[in-house]
């Protein structure tokens, strides 16, 4: 993507500021996005993005700039401008670069470039008919199919360069069902870091039916109860609670700023001893997986909590240096326009021993929260909220009426200690996570989990 001589010249130019670290990050993206709504292919949009980000770290400060081009004049000029922002004195430092090779190669079968527009269109039309045929109450289906081919090249003053290609395919289905004046929605998605072979096992219409099932079931929903009660969190997307309520608090930038309740707790028991939590960017083809992070560090499996004891935080280059810890391969950025920061990849609570049906049976009165619309946390306090998009009342161990309009609210550190059972049915779900204005791909996961007590915010008081 770039002449190695130019790379060295740019890195050296940036280091002339006397800074200890310089980096060049090149990214080329080709995106295609098809959107279906009202039974029609409403838009077909493609994008071409190419650019180069330059970074200097000097002391505690990061300096960043980018150009939307790979022209050597523009890159060198940007490097000079950025360097002069740090310091006006000039220091020459010798630099040697060697290639950092990939640990593994992922096989891609149906590359997005080799799938015709007509085939992509037919996936969406299948979604529409399957979702509508599921039930007459379905009044609207919105579905998006996106693919991305991304090439990156990273080199830095630590003396290495690496490059990679990432393929991503994402299908989302949103169904609206209506009965009299009640409107309900159902959402499902499938997303992987691989080609269109993702539909070999799970067909687009399977996803459509899953989304329709939720919307239609929720039409009969009753008002959710209000107050503290036992809550069973469903597998897969239930893991968003751990992601939000705990994961963000383990990101090292929050630790450094004393903006997390988990600061200084490594080695301490912070969760029930049945809880083990992991961030693993190496899971093949997972939505949050990558070969190198966006600073060129190889991806890793990082045990965050082991049998209830906090083992590690989530680091990027800068925070690891500052805290004198080892990088964990979690330096991620939205694009070449952004500074990398510590982010999660695929984050999950590991399997426990219990049979999920027995977990359900153990609850006399409570809530089964199966799917979530997402959530939010304040890492400084650990306070969180989650919107339940598919939930049920549990009575005497049985799943009963669906509930509407419910939110879970609580405090991360408290909830971790109140986990009373962990199932053996670990599953994953893809999503997007926003932090500091940057949105990136993440996967969350967990088996069925029982929390002794969470506050449910419904409308029935």
């Amino acid at each position, binding site marked *: 993507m770039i002449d190695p001589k130019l790379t060295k010249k740019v890195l050296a130019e940036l280091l002339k500021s006397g800074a200890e670290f310089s980096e060049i990050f090149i990214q080329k993206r080709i995106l295609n996005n098809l959107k279906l709504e009202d039974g029609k292919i409403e838009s077909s949009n493609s994008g071409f993005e*190419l650019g180069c980000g330059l970074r200097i770290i000097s002391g505690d400060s*990061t300096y960043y700039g980018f150009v939307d081009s790979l022209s050597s004049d523009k890159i060198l000029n940007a490097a000079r*401008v950025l360097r002069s922002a740090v310091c006006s004195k000039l220091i020459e430092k010798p630099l040697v670069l060697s290639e950092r090779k990939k640990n593994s190669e992922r096989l891609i079968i149906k590359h997005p470039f080799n799938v015709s527009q007509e085939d992509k*269109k037919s996936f969406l039309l299948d979604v529409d008919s399957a979702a509508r045929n599921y039930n007459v109450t379905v009044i609207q289906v919105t579905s998006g199919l996106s693919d991305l081919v991304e090439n990156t090249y990273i080199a830095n003053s630590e003396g290495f360069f690496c490059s990679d290609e990432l393929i991503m395919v994402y299908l989302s289905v949103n169904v609206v069902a*209506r009965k009299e004046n009640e409107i309900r929605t159902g959402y499902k998605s499938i997303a992987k870091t691989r080609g269109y072979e993702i539909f070999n096992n799970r067909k687009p219409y399977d996803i459509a039916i899953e989304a329709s099932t939720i919307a239609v079931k929720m039409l009969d929903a009753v008002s959710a109860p209000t107050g503290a009660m036992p809550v069973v969190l469903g597998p897969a997307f239930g893991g968003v609670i751990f992601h939000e309520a705990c994961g963000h608090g383990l990101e090292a930038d929050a630790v450094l*700023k004393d903006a997390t309740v988990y600061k200084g707790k490594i080695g301490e028991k912070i969760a029930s001893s049945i809880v083990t939590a992991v961030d693993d960017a190496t899971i093949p083809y997972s939505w949050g997986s990558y070969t190198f992070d966006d600073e060129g560090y190889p991806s890793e499996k990082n045990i965050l909590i082991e049998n209830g004891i906090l083992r590690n935080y989530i680091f990027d280059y800068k925070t690891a240096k500052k805290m004198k810890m080892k990088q964990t391969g979690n330096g991620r950025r939205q694009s070449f326009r952004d500074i990398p920061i510590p982010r999660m990849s695929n984050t999950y609570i590991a399997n426990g021993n219990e049979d999920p049906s027995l977990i359900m049976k153990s609850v006399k009165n409570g809530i089964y929260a199966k799917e979530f619309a997402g959530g939010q946390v304040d890492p400084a306090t650990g306070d969180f909220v989650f919107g339940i998009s598919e939930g049920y009342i549990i009575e005497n161990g049985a799943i009963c009426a669906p509930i*509407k309009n419910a939110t879970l609210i609580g405090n991360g550190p408290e909830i971790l200690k109140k986990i009373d059972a962990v199932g053996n049915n670990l599953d994953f779900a893809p999503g997007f996570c926003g932090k500091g204005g940057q949105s990136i791909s993440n996967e969350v996961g967990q088996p069925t989990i029982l929390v002794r007590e969470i506050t449910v915010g419904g409308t029935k008081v």
Partner: protein
Amino acid sequence: MNNAHNKMPDGSKLNKNLMLQCTKAASILKGKAVDEFEVYGLASISTLIKIYNLDVENLSFSDTRGMGFRIFKGGRMGYAYTSNLEKGEVEKCIEKAVANSGITHKEQYNYLPLEEEFKYKRGLIDEKNLLSEKFLEYTTEDKIKIARELERITRKKDKRVKGISNLLYEDSLTEIAIINSAGFSGSYKTSSAFIYESVISREGSDNSTGDYFGYARGPEKLDVELISGNAVKRSTMLLGAKKVKSQVGSVILDPFVAAQLLGVIAGMLAADAIQKGKSLFKGRIGEKIFNGDFNIIDDGTLKEGLASKPFDGEGVPKGRTVIFDKGVLTTYLYNTFTARKDKMLSTGNAVRSSYKSPPDVGISNFYIEPSAISFENLIKKMDKGFYVMDIIGLHSGVNPISGHISVGAKGMWIEDGILTFPLKEVTIATDILSFCKNLETVGSDIKYLPANGYIGSPSMLVRNIAIGGN
């Protein structure tokens, strides 16, 4: 740090050739077998500064531009964009836009805006108001100084202030240009400066966070004294917060909380959502949705409005649209495509978040008119209930289609018309239509929030809200 910051990109050479680049792309498009085309160009220069412990944590410069091409061919639309404006790349991108029109649905309403479809005349806005004259006088060093000053003042305000988890300054100078084959060609420049801080305070083992921001056309209008005062107050006031018993009761929503809920209503008024059956306001024109006589307005020409602009995302002039008149729903918000479907005129509400997507429907400056009632009198009027100062989980806690709302909230409990103790880990739940019915009064203290538009609301007194605690 030194004066070398002065060498950083300044706006003086902002994108002087954006229009020229768009014109060149248009000439390529003229040679293609398409019925109509539109070129949308965006160029922006911005500075982002993050301060931590009075030091620069991040300093980031961006000078970026891109173009999006919308083409119509046989009633079908195709779109493609590129951030790489070298000639071969633009050509390739245009080819892709043309190819994309091959698989989209044929629609009789797919064509460029015509002048007779505009609800408002051109020239209702003074473009001088979109740009701060002083913007370019500020060097990077000056901006760092403002951000540092905010931290310095904040730390001195209250002993319980433990830290600042996030303090950022961001400004930008942006130019938008549109050229289409129906003869429209226009461009405008806007500037903005934003500063934000989130303050952590601590008392014993209890932590509390509170934030505040300033948003203006230029850095000279950012009042760091006011921002730090409000952020510290919002953080420290809620120390020692507890839960409350679950109940149905009255709430007063802080202007920023009210503006967030108003933003949900705004999304449900887009003609696109109505026509696709995704809005509870469908078929309700002429109906009194609010019990009170509230006026809700979208005004793309508002003088102080930070979402004001001369024309919308497809070149249609902006204007002032009264959506709720004394509580009665009078119109939806339209771009030309949705206006044609309803046999209406375009209200100039085509929005584009960037050059990366074709026009959608959305708000500009969207606000509910304030009353003359002060906040103190609003509290007295409520007598007893929950003063909601902040909500979290709006994104996941609100379903814009079904209208259900259930979010986490913190604030103060009000008893006998006065603020008593702080509350946290409380939920408030209702649905949009009940919310409209139960909105009793608004205050005089209107404030604006930048959120996919610029949304303004005073404090709101709402009855019959489910408050969830223990």
